[in-house]
């Protein structure tokens, strides 16, 4: 409160005026609106994902780099594991197998010093499973919800082994992507198999990782069985129509859908389009294009068969969902005041973890490129849990996480 405001309240004349004004308004006012109580979303019983691809939920909690969201108690608390000296966590946060958390680390100011870390859920020291050598990188991807800066390490469950991808590029031997395995019992980490020369993870199908090799003659889309290292062909160059569209550009693969977007510069008519391949039926469908009202069309994510699309043109932008099977727009999803559907981060059984606008402004302090503290304010966001049916029906019947008081050291 400013000095001026305090002066008014402390002034006796001010108090008299305030009392009279309140009394007057009380007499003229309408009856107070009836309070509507929104039934709280019950906390779900989280299920540990049994797909080979690990996600950001450990069965009880969802983690970002700095916060742990407990799904049973619906509380959020700070989470800052003590990392090996000189390392900082990178990416959006860890993935979990229900026993431990796995995350990517890098040395401050050193882009080549990547390492894969593991910390048991019950706490304890962070163990380095793999340190990248020169010209090596650990595979990362949108393992849960896609979005900006939400990439996490690609970790695959294989019995008592946890597998991950290492991309290696050397001038003489060429590029290669390796499947590495770390054994829970022996603690040994070793290469399992060279998967190809230029292989990327784009999502999962039937619980297994889907990799793309974009280099001829091996070009194709493959399903990886982490137990055996076997690659099963999902799409090869023989299917010319699909191969022309889907082998090459970045892909988004969820459930049985493979989506890709074409760029305006590559199309003679200067328009962008998003196509979807149904791996079950082989059908290819156009889901969005510049004809929807925006020049630039980008796919964002797929949730329960609905593709989230972003369109931009100049300062204008829009977000909407399209049904991957019918190609029709999905109307009525839960949206913010400006009509933008709320962002989904992850799914837990029949629930979604979503970002909801917060009344409070978030404040950030960071160092700029000259080492000066910079203070920024932004509209805050809170995480919330919502039943899937409520999200698609546009019912704001979600439950937010209560922030736990910071523990004093």
């Amino acid at each position, binding site marked *: 409160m*400013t*000095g001026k405001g*305090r*002066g008014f309240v*402390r*002034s*006796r*004349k001010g108090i*008299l005026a305030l009392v009279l004004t309140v009394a007057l308004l009380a007499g003229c006012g309408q009856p107070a609106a009836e309070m509507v109580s929104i039934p709280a979303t019950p906390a779900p019983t989280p299920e540990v994902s049994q797909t080979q691809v690990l996600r950001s939920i450990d069965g009880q909690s969802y983690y970002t780099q700095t916060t742990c969201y407990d799904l049973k108690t619906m509380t959020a608390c700070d989470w800052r594991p003590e990392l090996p000296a000189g390392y900082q966590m990178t990416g959006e946060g860890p993935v979990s197998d229900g026993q431990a958390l796995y995350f990517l680390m890098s040395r*401050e*100011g050193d*882009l080549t010093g990547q390492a894969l870390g593991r910390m048991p859920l019950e706490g304890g020291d962070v163990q380095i499973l793999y340190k990248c050598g020169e010209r090596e990188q650990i595979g990362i991807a949108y393992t849960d919800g896609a979005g900006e800066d939400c990439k996490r390490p690609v970790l695959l469950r294989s019995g008592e082994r946890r597998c991950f991808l290492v991309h290696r590029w050397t001038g003489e031997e060429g590029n290669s992507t390796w499947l590495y395995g770390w054994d829970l019992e022996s603690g040994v980490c070793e290469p399992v198999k060279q998967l190809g020369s230029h292989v990327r993870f784009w999502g999962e199908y039937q619980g297994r990782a889907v990799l793309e090799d974009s280099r001829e003659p091996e070009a194709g889309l493959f399903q990886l069985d982490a137990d055996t290292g076997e690659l099963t062909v999902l799409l090869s160059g023989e299917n010319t129509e699909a191969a022309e569209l889907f082998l090459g550009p970045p892909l988004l693969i969820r459930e049985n859908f493979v989506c890709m977007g074409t760029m305006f510069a590559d199309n003679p008519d200067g328009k962008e389009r998003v196509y979807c391949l149904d791996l079950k039926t082989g059908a290819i469908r156009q889901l969005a294009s510049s004809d929807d009202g925006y020049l630039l069309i980008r796919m964002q994510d797929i949730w329960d068969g609905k593709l989230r699309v972003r369109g931009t043109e100049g300062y204008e932008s829009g977000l909407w969902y399209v049904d991957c099977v019918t190609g029709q727009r999905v109307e009525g999803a839960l949206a913010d005041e400006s009509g933008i559907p709320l962002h989904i981060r992850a799914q837990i059984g029949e629930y979604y973890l979503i970002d909801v606008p917060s009344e409070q402004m978030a404040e*950030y*302090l*960071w*160092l*700029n*490129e*000259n*080492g*000066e*503290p*910079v*203070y*920024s304010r932004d509209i805050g966001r809170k995480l919330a849990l919502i039943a899937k049916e409520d999200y698609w029906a546009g019912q704001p019947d979600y439950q937010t996480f209560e922030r736990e008081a910071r523990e004093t050291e």
Partner: protein
Amino acid sequence: MKQNLFTAAAFLAAFAFLALALAAPLPLMEQSDQELYTQVMTRQLADDGRSAQARSNEFARQLYDRDQLLRVKNYAGAILQTTTAEIEAAAPYRLYDFLQQLDFWSSENQAELEQQISQAQRWETISDSVGFSAWRVYTMWEDAEWAELEWELSAQDRLVRLRMMTEQEYTWEDLEHMMDEYLAATGLEEIDDWQAVDVAPQFYVAEGITATLRARYSPGAKLYLYANYVDGVLALGVCPLEQEELAQFGASLMEE
């Protein structure tokens, strides 16, 4: 008719009585309010966690009050608006006057600064309600690239922040010396709990690039003082921060 006159008279009498009854205590209230307004407000001084020494230092108090009470945060020119302003002839001289108090500010430094200001193509400036002013000047650097020169002064012309391209390289000893002189020139050296801060770049520093960050923190005044030299840019400034906020950008007090 007579009854109507009687009713009107009674109403007027009642109104006059009510008006007198309400107005009677006004002179007393006026006097009481006057006393309240002139009292020293001790409440805010008692529970803000700052030391008595920091509260009695004028510049420290201005920086803290501006931040905490008025919620004006201008760290690193964050609120410097992109409003083109007329060149204020006096503005650079206010800066020159402050810098010339400092031994580390050499004639070469001064010439470099004056040259940049004389080549300014565009000025932006903003002032806040407590008299602090910030300037940003777009200037040509070495006849080849555009550079931004920024500075901020308090109402009493104490430097709050300076960021400029410079040909001179600064070592960590230079930066420490700069902070010593800055504290003396601003009167902040009266505060005796300045501690060294361990701070490292949080940004990517390419091979061959010099990035030297030096900083001090006063828990009593809740002020963060920094002097940095990164890739040909000198940044010197002071800003209010809570001690817990240091961790947000990876800084911590050095153990003695």
